[in-house]
């Protein structure tokens, strides 16, 4: 009997909290809402040390925090969420730690594919961004499977940056642009030869030049617009090789809370700051 009463009280309280949160988001929605939020999930290990949790438990706590934030973003109307899950630089860590993070990733990716997961509940489309060839075979296959399985969802898009650094992304975009340009020119020249025509050196010369659009098209992050806010937890004020190209006009916010401690209030504060500077940013974007 008591258990039933407790369950009922718990459910009522939960509903009340959800109602208040939705009311808060309604109020926030009077102003502009960011379309794309990016997060650097910093401070998981410090959190585990702070609360004396075991090795790897900090990342699990971080994952729970991520799921809550995804839910809030969905309710708020944010369309794109990008997270910096694992950098290429992180491969320098102790092999045991890298392995435990990879195991956690694999477990969570497989969890995403289950029926009752948050991905299906909220219609999340998942992209894995980065140099996925650096990942182990099992993880890479799991990411491909997850991307395929969620390709029909369109309510909110989650971009998980794994084996990613911005410099690697730019180098890759440069390589792809060069390759594409070369193939383009070769096929034009072949066509020219076949038709015994004379395109003219000047016209061909124009095609040699790589343009901004070529680079942007070949970026791993080309599937999403530039982020509006970049949030890095734990108070560090560095980009750490994350989205360097895409954050040139993005608002930067760095709360002191460690990642597992980041919650609704930090999100609301970030959105309020964004709304304060948004008008100015929009004017600049339109003029560019």
């Amino acid at each position: 009997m008591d258990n039933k009463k407790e369950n009922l009280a718990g459910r009522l309280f939960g509903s009340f909290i959800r109602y208040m949160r939705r009311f808060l988001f309604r109020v926030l929605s009077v102003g502009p809402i960011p379309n794309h939020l990016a997060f650097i999930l910093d401070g998981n290990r410090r959190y585990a040390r702070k609360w004396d949790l075991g090795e790897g438990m900090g990342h699990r706590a971080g994952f729970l925090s991520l799921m809550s934030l995804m839910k809030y973003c969905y309710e708020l109307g944010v369309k794109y969420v990008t997270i910096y899950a694992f950098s290429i630089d992180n491969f320098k860590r102790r092999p045991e730690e890298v392995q435990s993070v990879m195991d956690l990733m694999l477990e969570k990716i497989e969890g995403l594919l289950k029926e009752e997961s948050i991905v299906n509940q909220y219609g999340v489309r998942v992209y894995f961004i980065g140099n996925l060839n650096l990942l182990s075979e099992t993880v890479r296959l799991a990411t491909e499977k997850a991307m395929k399985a969620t390709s029909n969802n369109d309510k909110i898009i989650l971009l998980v940056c794994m084996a990613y650094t911005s410099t690697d992304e730019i180098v890759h975009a440069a390589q792809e642009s060069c390759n594409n340009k070369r193939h383009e020119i070769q096929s034009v020249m072949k066509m020219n030869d076949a038709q015994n025509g004379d395109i003219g050196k000047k016209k061909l010369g124009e095609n040699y030049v790589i343009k901004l659009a070529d680079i942007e098209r070949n970026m791993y992050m080309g599937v999403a617009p530039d982020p509006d806010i970049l949030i890095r937890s734990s108070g560090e004020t560095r980009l750490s090789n994350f989205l360097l190209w895409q954050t040139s006009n993005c608002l930067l916010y760095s709360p002191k809370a460690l990642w597992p401690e980041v919650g609704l209030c930090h999100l609301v504060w970030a959105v309020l700051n964004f709304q304060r500077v948004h008008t100015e940013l929009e004017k600049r974007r339109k003029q560019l």
Partner: protein
Amino acid sequence: MAAMQSFQIHPSTLKHQRFPHATRNKLSPNTCCPLFSFVSKATILSGPRGNGVLVNCLPPVDNHADEDLGSVPPDLWKDSMPIHVAVIMDGNRRWAQMRGLPSVSGYEAGAHAFRTVVDLCCKWRITVLTVFVFSSDNWTRPKVQHLVEIDFIMELLERALRDELQQLMRKNVRVSLIGDSTRLPKPLQVLLREAEETTKNNSQLHLIFALNYSGQNDILQACQNMALKVKDGHIEPEDINKFLLEKELETNCTEFPNPDLLIRTSGELRISNFFLWQLAYTKLYFANSLWPDFGEDEFVEALSSFQQRQRRYGGRSGS
């Protein structure tokens, strides 16, 4: 040295410099000219003080400068000063507007601050100082008033370079320019080249002016240069790597292209298309004060914040 330092209690740990929230000054951001609100315009002014508006912007001759070398304040560690500091000098026009003065006065005051920072960098043995003078994004602003202000700044830059070159030589400061100089007036381009050529052997401080600079364009031109090498058969696309690309960026004029510390004043929390590639691991420091108010104390705070950080480059500190 770094290991020893980790066991010392440093006085600056008593004031934890975290990410300061942007506190707006009394003016609404919309009243400030977006053209100049996020790039430094205050750096170069020149001419005699007679008209009460223009001042010499570069450090005065100081015959006792050698005695000050290396004398850092007690709050800072001499041996862990950043090698390369980058500055976005923001807030000059807002500073002038707050005082009911014309924008030119804001630039004048900003020039004082610039002079102070250059002096301090020479004194504290900072090797490279990059200042974001002018963004290429500014050219796209259509308003006539903005274009008039740009012309004004170009003119002042010309006068400064003509009058201050000798002082630069005396201070042993090397000047470089990054950015697309082709849109600048011809006389200014000539003067800049001359300044670069004359000061190229100076070694105390490398002062880099980012004029008409855009981080994205910098990366794009580096990619274009690589593409030309591919076209000419020198390299294959697969050979393109981050080291080759970095060598093609405009910051290849210095041995230390990547800033250790970026300071942006006036509380704006953005990079605004300044360095992008080069800021991969840079400590970002956002100061609430406007650029003309940025003095030695504020610079010490920024440097102290830099010295407190623990850079791991993605790895893990020993445990």
